[in-house]
């Protein structure tokens, strides 16, 4: 916690994008998406529709999921157009750390 001497006058936060310091993995409730690149067609739907920017993209390919920020909403799994097994994205159970 910042003490009052670090408060900038005028309710100003001058560290743009500082929410990256805040992991939002604790929003997940026992499920998380899992990525399998073998059938992925790199349509990037999962990337665009992820509200958390948690789909990792490397060299123009989907590479995985950033679990620090993934909230387990399941949009990526729902929007993935691939029907061929093994599905690029599926929801799996996850042990919740309390």
């Amino acid at each position: 916690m910042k003490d009052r001497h670090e408060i900038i006058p005028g309710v100003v936060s001058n560290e743009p994008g500082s929410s990256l310091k805040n992991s939002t993995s604790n929003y997940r409730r026992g499920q998380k998406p899992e990525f399998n690149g073998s059938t992925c067609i790199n349509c990037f739907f999962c990337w665009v529709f992820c509200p958390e920017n948690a789909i990792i993209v490397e060299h123009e390919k989907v590479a995985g999921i950033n679990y620090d920020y993934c909230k387990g909403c399941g949009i990526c799994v729902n929007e993935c157009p691939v029907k061929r097994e093994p599905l690029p994205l599926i929801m799996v159970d996850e042990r919740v750390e309390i």
Partner: protein
Amino acid sequence: MVTLKELATKDNLFVSGHHLCPGCSIPVTLKILLRSTQFPVVVSNATGCLHTGSTVYPHTSWRVNYMHSSSSNASAGMSGIQATYKALKKQGRLPVDNRLKFLVVGGDGATYDSGFSAVSGAMERGEDFVYLCCDNQMYAGSGGQRSSASPMGAATTTTPAGSVLPGKLQFRKDITRIMAAHKIPYVAQSSPWFWQDLYRKSEKAFETPGPTFINVLNPCPGEWKIPTGKSIEMSKLAADTCVWPLYEIENGNKITVNYKPKEKLPVTAWLESQDRFIHLLKSENKWIVEKIQEEVDKDWEFLLSSQVEKTRIN
């Protein structure tokens, strides 16, 4: 038209770590819209889900200049920002080639209700900004109270479905056409599922001088009572049932419909998909469903018959 791969290479101006609900479609809308201009953006945001979720002190998810002041005055705040911008440029205190884009973001509460007069005033004064309405059809941030954007029949905490009342009994305000009636250069309605449409409209809005307005349907899993993974799919269903048509209006009267569903689905498909409408499926509420279908059909016919160009699908 830009590709998603190209979009993925652009800077992320609204970053992870925010506190919007799992499955919220507002960050998706912002992701697409903020990438549609190459120039730095200055944002004025009304109180609502987005503000309280993205600026929890001391962190912020914004990588652009951002100001919040109150629930009903984001547009008025922006009037001041762009007035100083004009003044400083005229005086040479900002370089002549300095280019900034101005974006006002408000939820439906801030746009349709408490901030309505401020939005209207800013539109009438012809100020240069893009107004993005993130419409989740209720005051979602404060726990799901009705707004004038809530559709007929919707159950909200202030228009609940009980033994004598079947949810909201008024049709929603057609804010998009109200904004067009201000005769501003560009008004559009879009949805996150059709990202190409949203991107094109955002780009056009940023490039058009003067006030522009984009109304985006942002399904809210928390308050619409839908699974968190379905919010994008739900926004497509809204277009396929013509409950949320995608169209644009230029200069107050030139209408173009941007999406015509291959098969127009009945509104029951929309109503059945969300718990906030589930009470409408009871036989005693059939009259409401009929009214809703009638209104949707009327508005859809109006758009189709008024459009100047043939429907184009991007």
